[in-house]
């Protein structure tokens, strides 16, 4: 149930803000307002550790004087601060240069349909119940095995927010949404080897969260399986990205076809539209209207309508990821991606995780990546990794303190298979991804 009264109150503030901008001389303006409330409770070693009550708000405004732009934001919604924020944005616009590409979206691209995407499910959770849940989750992890030696605790989070945005073209919309999560992180120890790992579940509807016991058990299992890891000698071999980290590979790809990197020519996929970027079997699409999904929204950060669409089909790049500004810089139209992609999905093949291991044969299963070693300009990729060494489809032993390296352009082209072990927790939905060959560096 949407709190229409509160949404309307915030809409009025946004409208006042837009009116104020106009009265200060702006020829166009855009404003957004968010209000969030939440509760986070964590438990460690069987007792409550922190109880955090969240209550935050913020508004941002962008004004245009012709093609001159200025922005400001404030967490203080008093009339005086709102006025100050608008004046600051207007003052800035006097100093920025005219940019022929800047400005609001074209009227006809603004969203006009606002389907109920089922994003709002309040969780009537008392502090006591939250503590109980966190303790249950952590207990499941700690009692899982004798080698679970310590804990960073389990935590329960529930957040509800209202997001309103409007612009001087008459767009004024708002909706309420929720996000709940349960997570657990524990340590395992055997001799000198100490390892930590975690598991979590997140959903817009608390009823869809994985059970506390299951989350605890998985966290424990993941920490245990890393014990007594070794390095590998330097070599080249196939690499299987587990589903929960494969999304990073796709995010790098999305970065390379995003407007900002394209018009700055700092992408390894410049002018790659209509060319073969992936093998033929790869199909990647965006599903912004999925019911109840974490990434769903009827419009993007500028009010532009979002659409279900193909980004890659038959391995060929069909569309970039653009906001209004970056689209104009490139002589194209916005793809409704101000603020990023929504529910990006790569179609799965027929293999489950075990099948993917078999397909990997002998090589590296990567379950964790560290560091930022991705160069968007060149596609050079070199990151710290941990995972498992696999021979003949069987996991042999944990591996740590290695790096995996390659060039993203080649890595994307050399994807061998995408598993059906799909990870649904994030904004990118993918199964595990097998890359034909990468360089491993170790001892």
């Amino acid at each position, binding site marked *: 149930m949407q709190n229409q009264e509160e949404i309307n109150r915030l809409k009025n503030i946004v409208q006042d803000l837009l009116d104020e901008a106009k009265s200060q001389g702006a020829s166009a303006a855009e404003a957004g307002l968010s209000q969030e409330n939440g509760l986070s409770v964590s438990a*460690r070693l069987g*007792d409550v*550790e*922190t*109880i*955090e*009550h*969240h*209550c*935050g708000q913020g508004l941002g405004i962008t004004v245009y004087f012709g093609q001159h*732009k*200025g*922005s*400001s*934001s*404030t*967490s*203080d*919604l008093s009339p005086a601060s709102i006025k100050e*924020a608008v004046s600051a944005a207007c003052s*800035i616009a*006097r*100093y*920025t*240069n005219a*940019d022929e590409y800047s400005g609001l979206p074209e009227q006809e691209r603004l969203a006009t349909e606002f389907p109920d995407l089922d994003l709002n499910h309040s969780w009537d959770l008392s*502090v006591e119940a939250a503590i109980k849940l966190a303790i249950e989750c952590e207990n499941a992890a700690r009692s899982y095995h004798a080698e679970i030696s*310590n804990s*960073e605790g389990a935590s329960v989070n529930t957040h509800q927010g209202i997001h309103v945005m409007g612009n001087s073209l008459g767009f004024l919309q708002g909706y309420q949404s929720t996000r709940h999560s349960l997570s657990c992180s524990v*340590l395992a120890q055997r001799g000198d080897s*100490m*390892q*930590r790992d975690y598991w979590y579940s997140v959903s817009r509807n608390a009823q869809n969260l994985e059970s506390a016991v299951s989350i605890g058990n998985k966290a424990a299992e993941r920490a245990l399986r*890393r014990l007594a890891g070794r390095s590998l000698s*330097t070599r*080249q071999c196939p690499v299987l990205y587990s589903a929960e980290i494969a999304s990073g590979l796709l995010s790098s790809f999305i970065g390379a076809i995003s407007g900002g990197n394209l018009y*700055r*020519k700092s992408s390894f996929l410049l002018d790659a539209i209509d060319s073969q970027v992936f093998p033929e079997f790869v199909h990647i699409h965006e599903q912004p209207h999925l019911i109840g999904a974490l990434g769903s929204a009827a419009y993007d950060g500028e009010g532009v309508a979002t659409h279900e669409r193909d980004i890659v089909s038959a391995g060929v790049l069909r569309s970039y990821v653009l906001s209004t500004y970056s689209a104009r810089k490139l002589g194209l139209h916005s793809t409704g991606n101000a603020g990023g992609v929504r529910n990006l999905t790569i179609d799965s093949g027929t293999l489950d995780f075990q099948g993917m291991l078999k397909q990997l044969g002998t090589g590296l299963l990567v379950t964790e990546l*560290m*560091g*930022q*070693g991705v*160069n968007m*300009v*060149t596609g*050079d990729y*070199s*990151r*710290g990794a*941990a995972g498992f060494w696999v021979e003949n489809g069987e996991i042999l032993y944990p591996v740590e*303190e290695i*790096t*995996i*390296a*390659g*060039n993203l352009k080649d890595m994307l082209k050399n994807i061998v298979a995408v598993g059906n072990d799909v990870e649904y927790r994030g904004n990118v939905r993918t199964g595990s991804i097998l890359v034909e060959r990468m*360089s*491993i*560096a*170790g001892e």
Partner: protein
Amino acid sequence: MKLLNLVKQAILTPVGIQDGDIEKIMSRLLSSPVDAADIYFQSSHTESWVIEGGIIKEGSYNIEQGAGVRAVSGEKTGFAYSDRIELPVLLEAANNVKSIVRQGQEAQVGLKQAVNWPQYYPIANPLKSLSDQQKIELLRRVDTETRKLDSRIEEVIVSLVSAHESILVANQDGSLAADIRPLVRMNVTVIVEEKGHREQGSMGGGGRSDYSYFIDQDRALEYGKEAVRQALVNLEAEDAPAGNMTVVLGPGWPGILLHEAIGHGLEGDFNRKGTSAFSGRVGERVASDLCTVVDDGTLQGRRGSLSIDDEGTPTEKTVLIENGILKGYMQDKLNARLMGVKSTGNGRRESYASLPMPRMTNTYMLAGQHHPEDIIRSVKKGLYAKNFAGGQVDITSGKFVFSASEAYLIENGKITRAIKGATLIGNGPDVLTKVSMVGNDLELDSGVGTCGKDGQSVPVGVGQPTLKIDGLTVGGTSV
């Protein structure tokens, strides 16, 4: 105290909160038998300007203010915050927070006279240190001068950011501590192209100062030169080798290795909980005897410096490792109390909306005896890492990684070819035991570091002299 009054005027006066109101909120917090409680008020003003494609493209101004209320009992913490600094809201927050412990009696708290502590930066508002017109002219000048440096330059992006933040902490003993924190930063990114091959270089700096910092010693123009130099080096760079080899780290920013590999593992919370690879190792050897590492919040005007931390504790120069022996951890109040030591002034928080934790300030290794040239000369085959893009650590397993943004091969005691895409990986507790030479050229970084922990970002500094490490894994593509 003048500073305290200034901060009260900046945060409390506009919202009509008086000393008596703070006493009321604190009394409410202390009506349960808590071990510690604090109220944190914050107000910050931030601006940023960007020139790109030769035009002043963006400018923004941000106002952030609010208050956080915390009560601690044993290992338990109750916390609430609000952007509305209003008495009823904060009393309600105090009610929510103190429920962490059972009900007690109404307590009375009286605010005390504040004591003085040293200031390590000026309090003037950096946003006002130049007129808007002058800020624009500075950006234009950097853009124009940088573009002149080489015909292969395709794009120059310069950003200028500054913040003026006031904080006030009221503690359960009735003490008030206040701080006014300026912070400025400039960054220049350059994209170069030659025969269809593009590379990028980046350089920036800043500190707790005002905009004159970038004009003094022509720093702003130097950032441009340095960004171009790095981008051009990368044009020539070859694929990085892979495998275990001797690595020489340059002075200054490569001190991020200390921050990642050692620093995080020495934060009090992880050690109190026993989750760090360094837990329980005080008094043990964790580095070669050439290594002495400190965390120092007291450096004048540095990006990571703080006069007081976010719990009102004056910062210190804390010795973490002395001649290779682990001396102690960085502490906030909660973890210090639970470990039976004193806070080292490392309790920091991103804002009123998040809980304080032990965090680093400026972390660096003291200078040693060797001339940097002698260190390079001593290496037959290895890697010289001059600059890094960033890193990450798993404090439990101790494994760390970071990416070199500028690196060279060392062959027969000489720096030879530039290489690209090198990632270094190692084990935190081991890496400093392999330090075999320490240079006499200690440098602190130029003031660009931001550290993330549990989703909270805070500005930090790093530094070190030239270091030789016997054996680190280098991850490249050329096998």
